[in-house]
């Protein structure tokens, strides 16, 4: 089978700050990482590759430096990498992005499975994966924990409210992955990183994938971001354990210390 994994480079959200005056992200000094959910999706695909000798191709979209996540995936074992990079893609929302990714996947040719992270930690929309499936007219299974393949049967273990669901599909299918211990992200060795430079890697422009300009970038994006602002900070809750009496005594102590109660 041929597997495509969609990966995205995102700013490490634990390090991102928002300028309170302008409402824009402060990117200086913030490291870029592979979207954590995509890392699990990648590991899931690589596990299947190891077991069944499938071919794994990575697709990403972003500025030239986003090559980094593609190269990391190749160092971990993917066979080929493609980066969609073109000024025409800049400012694309989830609709325009899934359009571009679907055009690239069509160009790759016969694809049996597409893996994507459930969502990206920068936008948290969870729309791009399903969007790609829709654009390709392909069935999709979202929020998967684990995926197995038996012949032409694709068995997906899916997380649902209060339980799990096991679904079966025939290729082609798109799966979005959540985090699961079976696919704990690995990091490549120095030798594997060096060797990954010799694997096929392509940068495709909008013209290369036959994407129409009107569906790309800001003008091809129905979503417009009005404003970004940090959520109001909540006071931290303190947690105490022990008996009820101990708890009451502790609370009284704190109330006195904070001068809510007189001694």
């Amino acid at each position, binding site marked *: 089978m041929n597997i495509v994994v969609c990966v995205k480079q995102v700013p490490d959200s634990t390090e991102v*700050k928002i300028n309170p005056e302008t409402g824009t992200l402060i990117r200086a*000094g913030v490291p870029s990482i592979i979207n954590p959910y995509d890392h699990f999706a990648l590991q899931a695909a690589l596990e299947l590759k190891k077991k069944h000798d499938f071919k794994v191709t990575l697709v990403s979209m972003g500025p030239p430096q986003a090559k980094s996540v593609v190269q990391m995936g190749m*160092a971990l074992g993917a066979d080929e990498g493609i980066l969609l990079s073109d000024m025409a893609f800049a400012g694309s929302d989830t609709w325009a992005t899934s359009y571009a990714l679907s055009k690239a996947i069509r160009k790759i040719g016969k694809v049996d499975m597409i893996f994507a992270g459930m969502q990206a930690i920068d936008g948290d929309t969870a729309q791009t994966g399903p969007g790609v499936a829709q654009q390709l007219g392909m069935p999709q299974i979202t929020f998967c924990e684990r995926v197995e393949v038996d012949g032409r049967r694709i068995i997906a273990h899916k997380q649902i409210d209060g339980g799990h669901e096991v679904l079966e599909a025939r290729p082609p299918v798109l799966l979005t992955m959540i985090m699961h211990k079976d696919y704990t992200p690995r990091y*490549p060795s120095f*030798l594997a990183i*060096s060797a990954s430079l010799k694997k096929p890697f392509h940068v495709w422009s909008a013209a290369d994938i036959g994407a129409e300009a009107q569906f790309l970038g800001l003008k091809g994006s129905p979503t417009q971001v009005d404003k970004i602002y940090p959520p109001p900070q909540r006071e931290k809750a303190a947690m105490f354990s022990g008996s009820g009496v101990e708890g009451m005594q502790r609370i009284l102590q704190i109330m006195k210390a904070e001068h809510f109660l007189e001694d």
Partner: protein
Amino acid sequence: MASMDAISRNLMLDSLKEYAKRRIPYDLIRELDEKNEFPADILKEMYDRDTLGVHLLMIPEEYGGVSGGTYDIYRICEALARIDLGIATGVFATFLGTDPLNVGGTGEQKEKWLKRIASENLLVAYAATEPDAGSDLVNLRTRAEHVVKNGKIAGYRITGNKQWISNGGVADMHTVLAMAPGGPCWFIVEKNMEGFSANKHEDKHGIRLSNTAGLSLDNVYVPAENLIGLEEGKGLLQAQAVFGYTRVMVAAFGLGAGEEAMEQAIRYSQQRIQGGGPLSDKQGYTHKLIVPNYVRLEGARSYIEYTALRLDSGEHGLQTEGAIAKYGASEWGNKAADDAIQAFGGYGYTKDFPVEKIKRDIKITCIYEGTSEVLEMTIYRGRWQEHLKSRGRYYLDMADRLDELHAKEPRCGAHAAALGLRALGAVLEECRAQKLTRHQHVTFKLGRLICAAETAAIFSTAAGAQKYAETVRFDREGWQAMARVFAREAALNTAMEGLALVLGAADSGNGLADAVNLEAIQTEQKGMVADMDLVAAKLKQTFKAK
């Protein structure tokens, strides 16, 4: 070797950091530090080619390595130092031990030994130092005698003692410096060779996760093919040939450990409320304990990068530059770590907080791979020659280039750096005219002044460049403010200390105050406090409380 592409380098850094996050938590480091224990399993895993293979950086691709350049090695060394300087030293010892082979080995020797180091994850040690021969290797006592068979030199019998050898007790192979009849040379000695033994692991002040031991060589037989380069008498040249970049590695240690200590203090200072507000908002705290240290370390970083890039572009030697890089980074790193303890107050003095260990660890960077005093001498010697050769123009020409930069980029501190260089030129010239370099004190002190003034020049040049290096974590406004703070401090110190030095040693120092242009340097201090405010704000923004 030229450096690799930035993406590959940064992926390697990510893998190293992730490994450390998972496998080397601070609690474990603290326990090993307490027990004075070398983590053999961790080092072996870090060398494992399927896990990390960090030692492969030093080995060319054709022998199974990844062909790291000096810039790559500097980045990895800095990251290692941020994890633990003892573990970093264990890796560094393999780098150092591999060096004589890289520099002087024959094709066949490289084929055999580099391939083995790469594929068998060998820990290597570099055995040069002796009880009576530290920086002064001329006193080398270890002897290598010929063993002749059928009229040909079949091998050597090596006898002597080595001291302070990193990885000494744990290495699989050692490159040992010994005096052969034809002069000093390097030999490959394997740990199981008869007559070879390691002494006890030293109980050190810091870097306690690094194994340090003396070695005894009692008539150890080594086949002739283990003489690196197959030619006697090349040992010291082979050792010196690599000082440029081995010192860049130790410089990276001072930088990494020093900045790590500072960054922990900066994060802490935003949570610690004193007198109604966080310490991070108080000038009495930031402008004394944080800003000057961080700025000096960023200066050291720019000098390290400048030297690393020159080495990667094919220049050889660069002993003076390597010495400046290491001297600045280690001395300023040591001071930063000391101030980080102060910045944590009583907490910093306990072992619960990593700054206490960093302070003990970082001191070694002022000692190994050339003590600070040896480096002061090296720097002075190198630049004194330049001063004489150029008839006093060396620093004046450099200052002219900085002034040209200032005309284009007025906010990168280039003017202050130029003032400092002109003051330095004047001090050197006065020392020449009055023959003051007969005082060793004067020469060493000049080494110190040269380091700061040149670092200011390189920092300002980097901060004035159109594009910044991948390591700069601040915006242009912030990094230029740092360069200005550094250059002002360096210029003032060069002028004041240079003046005091000459007046202290000379019969007369009349006119030098004018020549160093103290007045202009003092005028240039305008805006210093506002710049320090800006730097403090940028540091807070970049290293926010966790």
